[in-house]
């Protein structure tokens, strides 16, 4: 145990915090704290990437750590904050399933994710290999959050948190994707968030609410 380098311990710690944040988001009832939790997750993700960068001396990881910090921890939360204020939807987060049930489902998902990731992380040689399971778990938890929330903004936060989990997977399994790909992904996420922002206003204009349950008229039969 004592032979584990400090950097690996730090990465594991950060990964655990990311998982904790994923659960916290799942349990959070209000919009603004939800966005703050998302920002914290982004910041921890950037820190974790930074530690991997320092340990492995890979230049492009510094860039992606910086990009993550700028985009996921600062810019996107700021945009979301502004949206929440402009749309004045501070208080309405509702869950379709009650939160304890969601949490239990979440735990099951974590167990599944860990088991799926186990054979793969055993093949890996990166110092952060253990976190692949956590990354997959975060993706699944974000997915669960998107399913169980009925309001537009939490769904989007779930979407972005899913991206966080994928990013963690990329750094933990392979020290990040090639730079071109990473830039492309970042651009897509940013454009996606902006388009969604435009969308919120359109939905509001049409329905006077951001409740996705209004969007259930299109059905078969």
């Amino acid at each position, binding site marked *: 145990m004592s032979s584990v380098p400090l950097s690996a311990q730090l990465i594991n710690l950060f990964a655990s915090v990311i998982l904790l944040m994923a659960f916290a988001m799942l349990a959070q009832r209000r919009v603004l704290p939800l966005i703050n939790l998302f920002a914290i997750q982004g910041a921890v993700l950037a820190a974790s990437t930074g530690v991997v960068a320092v340990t492995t001396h890979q230049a492009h990881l510094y860039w992606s750590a910086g990009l993550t910090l700028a985009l996921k921890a600062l810019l996107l939360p700021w945009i979301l904050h502004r949206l929440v204020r402009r749309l004045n939807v501070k208080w309405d987060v509702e869950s379709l399933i009650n939160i304890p049930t969601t949490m239990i489902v979440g735990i099951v998902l974590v167990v599944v994710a860990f088991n*799926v990731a186990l*054979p*793969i992380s055993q*093949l*890996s040689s990166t110092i952060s290999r253990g976190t692949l399971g956590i990354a*997959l778990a975060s*993706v699944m938890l974000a*997915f669960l959050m*998107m399913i169980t929330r009925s309001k*537009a903004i939490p*769904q989007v936060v779930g*979407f972005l948190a*899913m*991206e966080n989990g*994928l990013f963690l*997977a*990329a750094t933990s*399994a*392979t*020290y990040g*994707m*090639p*730079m*071109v*790909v990473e830039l*492309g*992904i970042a*651009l*897509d996420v940013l*454009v*996606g968030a902006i*388009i*969604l922002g*435009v*969308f919120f206003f*359109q*939905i509001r*204009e*049409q*329905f006077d609410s951001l409740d*996705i349950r*209004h*969007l*259930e*008229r*299109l059905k*078969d*039969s």
Partner: protein
Amino acid sequence: MDTFVLMLAIPLVSGMLLTVVGEREWAPNLNIVASLGTFLSSALLTGEIIADGPRMAFGEMFFIDSLNVFLVTLTAFVGLTTSIFSGPYMKNEQEHGRLTKGRMRLYKSMFQLFMFTMLAALTTNNLGILWVAMEAATLTTVLLVSLYRTPASLEAAWKYFILCGVGIAQALFGTILLYFAAERVLGETGNALLWTRLVDVKGQLEPTVMALAFIFLLVGYGTKVGLAPLHNWLPDAHAEGPTPVSAVLSGLLLNVALYAILRCKVLADGALPGGFAGNLMMGFGLLTLVMAAFFLSRQKDIKRMFAYSSIEHMGLITFAFGMGGVVANFAGLLHMTMHSLTKSAIFFAVGHATQKTGTQIMENIRGLLRINPVIGWGLMLGTLAILGMPPFGVFASEFMILTHAMKHHPWATPVLLLALGVAFASIFGRVQSMVFGETHAKRLPHAPAITPVFLHLAIVLALGLYIPPYLTRWFHEAAKMIG
């Protein structure tokens, strides 16, 4: 100038130009001219590839071979006809007050950018860029689906975005796993996502990782193909978006997503002998086919019905590629082509029909032959073609798929026949009563562009009667490459 660069640059530049200049009298013509330029350069490119064999561009960033070049030509061609069709169609929509000038501008620029992302996704050699281009294609079409800003179109666009976002995230996870498997063989060079490099070492990729990666990629890109159970976005997006968008979604986007799966399947097959990937695709394909066929019979909206028909055909094509082997792959590629051409032609005809009658509900559409015989016959012939009636080309490809299935997977044959039969009955009955009968609809201010419908149908008919030998050779080569 390099034809390839030209082909990618024209839609990108014209898309930006259309954003800047806004809605002008000549903007639709610019749209058509740009699409024509794209099509011509892609045709020239095809000529080069047939003459000189596969080539790269920009170092190893882009790669064109016999598989993707035919899809490139198809994409550029359908793009061209759609832009011709959308000129008068969108003008009519504007006159009806459903669209403002700003939205017209949005439509044209997004259409060109969408073409650009499609072509980039088809020609890129980097599986990461492929993902980025697919996601970009989603983003450009989300705004197109919600173009009318009606509650229903917003709902459709929201569903489209969220579902495809989730799907595409799965695909990204698959890509990461793929990169992980590749990096162990190719090293940390940044080349480990290049498809050409991966193909050379596909036998050495770690099987456990590749199996998991392929599952994620299939589910992820499969969402965009419209494979069950994540197909829900597709009928909504097709029904609520403008008709030209439905045409390109059905005719092109689904193909490109399927193309992404095919590229990954080649790699998965290399790492996993025993047909793991193929069986998975057969299962998903069959499930999709059956599900879509039974949903078809319950539709009331004409665009929704044909959207389900697209799902059905995508299931059939996925099943064909899942069977593997040169014959099945050949049939799959042929069916992809036929479906693209026929389905976009149908959507063109449907677009005019709904514009004339002012409704998408099939019960209220009657007597199309009386209103406009050309549109009526277009819809009827298109429907016959998509249902696999000889002598149309869809018959040839469906026949090949069925016979191949009978020979190698006899258990699947009854399922296929049942699904196709149900689809036939439900579509044909509806369309028949729409085309014939009495009506009292009025004339449209702008004469519809009917050429694309018959152009597409003529090609489908011609290919059904006679496939030129160079086309056969070309399909064969592509089919062999998929393995």
